[in-house]
């Protein structure tokens, strides 16, 4: 897929929480390229002296009709904090779409049931994945985990796409515990599991899937410099040796990783 480096236009900055924004971007001149779930954008952060490199952010939602797309950004450091200070009308230099997406099987192979498991800001690519699976005729089910109710973001958008289950560690919403404790694992089976979030969570989800002999794809968030396969900084150890997450991922079949 062709990659672009473009100045995109900030259409909206919505604070979902004091440290989470939904950033809506648009290309004022061209039709947005096709973007696959799991793909990401490398953003140049301005006005943050501590931020030298671009910041990778997953594509969260695409609105083809309006020619807009969303990024869900968690302000965890200087770079992402600077992004929360963006305002409508600002421009933002973006390299995109980067990486490989989650696989969307052709519907003529049969309608499939997907469990999409997200934790924290790792829910971001799951929304678009669900959106695309549904559009292709499949059945996405979401399982979102957080410490408490306030960690569950964009709930309505998930519910608009598919059944959505929640776990919180303090039982403030949905079932109590981690995503892997949710009863859905016992009551239903899925054709495919996908997950993105903190590594321990992804590993636990991977084990659950493996125990059920279900395929499992994870989206990794390794530190990146270039995002385009040039620097070899973002590598993950796989059964085929060190491979670049930015070009051969960020989505991997968990069986290809060397996570024991």
């Amino acid at each position, binding site marked *: 897929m*062709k*990659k*672009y*480096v473009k100045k995109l236009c900030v259409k909206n900055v919505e604070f979902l929480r004091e440290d989470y924004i939904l950033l809506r971007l648009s290309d004022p001149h061209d039709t947005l390229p096709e973007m696959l779930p799991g793909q990401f954008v490398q953003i*140049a952060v301005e006005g943050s002296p*501590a*931020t*030298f*490199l*671009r910041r990778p952010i997953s594509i969260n939602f695409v609105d083809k009709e309006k020619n807009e797309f969303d990024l869900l950004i968690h302000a965890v450091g200087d770079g992402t904090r600077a992004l929360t200070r963006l305002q409508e009308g600002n421009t933002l*230099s973006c*390299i995109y779409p980067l990486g490989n997406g989650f696989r969307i099987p052709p519907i003529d192979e049969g309608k499939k049931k997907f469990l999409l498991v997200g934790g924290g800001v790792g829910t971001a690519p799951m929304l678009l994945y669900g959106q695309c699976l549904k559009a292709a005729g499949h059945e996405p089910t979401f399982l979102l985990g957080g410490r408490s109710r306030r960690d569950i973001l964009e709930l309505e958008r998930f519910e608009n796409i598919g059944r959505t289950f929640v776990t919180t560690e303090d039982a403030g919403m949905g079932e109590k515990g981690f995503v892997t404790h949710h009863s859905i694992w016992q009551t239903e089976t899925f054709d495919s599991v996908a997950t993105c979030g903190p590594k321990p969570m992804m590993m636990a989800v991977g084990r659950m899937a493996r125990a059920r002999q279900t395929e499992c794809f994870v989206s990794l968030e*390794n*530190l*990146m*410099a*270039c*995002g*385009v*396969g*040039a*620097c*070899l*900084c*973002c*590598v*993950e*150890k796989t059964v085929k*040796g*060190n491979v670049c997450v930015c*070009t051969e991922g960020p989505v991997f079949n968990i069986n290809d990783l060397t996570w024991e």
Partner: protein
Amino acid sequence: MAQLAINIGNLSLRNPVMTASGTFGYGLEFTDFIDLNRLGAYIVKGTTLLPRQGNDYPRMAETASGMLNCVGLQNKGVDYFCKEIYPQLKDFKSHAIVNVSGSTPEDYAECAARVAELEKIPAIELNISCPNVHDGGMAFGVSCAGAASVVKAVRAAYPKTLIVKLSPNVTDISEIARAVEAEGADSVSLINTLMGMSVDIERRKSNLSIGTGGLSGPCVKPIALRMVHQVAKAVKIPVIGLGGIMNAEDAIEFIMCGATAIQVGTANFIDPAVTMKIIDGMNDWCDQHGVKNIYEIIGVI
């Protein structure tokens, strides 16, 4: 339109702008963003005789106005390059230059010999300055004898243009430059990365898998300029300057300090189209300042 063409050894470049090894992949990664044919030359990633897995992740840490890396020469080996990559590069109009690394002088020479057979690769850049591998790399580049031994071996095996990339992690870089010039290098390029470190105080560990890494980006530009200036005064062969170049003005600083050509490294990560802007910007700057030929300003300082 100023005359930007320059010569490095037998090599004629349409302009002085090259890309730095390890920051530009095989060039192919950038064809969506730029026209490779417009570059003076592009230097592909560090290549060794045998494949290497490189160092473990994490390999990168951001620093003030720069970054550290400890990639450690991950590559699939020279034969893979010759078979799989070269055919994809050979029809571009810009020169592809291979950055050659090794563990022993023989290693280097053997790798260089294989690259010599590739008709459309007119030059190699000898990396005797990688701070991220234990065997070879910087070990050779920090002494005159070490540097000379590698260059001597390679010179015997490699008849085309030989560029030697110098390490800044030395007391006197001009001494090393003179040593490699004496062994027949056609050009020197500098600087490779400065050895540095970055600490995660929460985890009480280095941010890099092998502890240290190589520093690059605008933070090193003052050091690179000083070394280019020193070396340009010390040798007669053309000097290729790099280290922190982000725009055309930076490039002209290096030219004025004595660089005949420049390389763009880390800046490619920030803006994958930066090389085109630098070429255009250098041309504009020359036009605005009445510089008709870039040679007028090489080494004016």
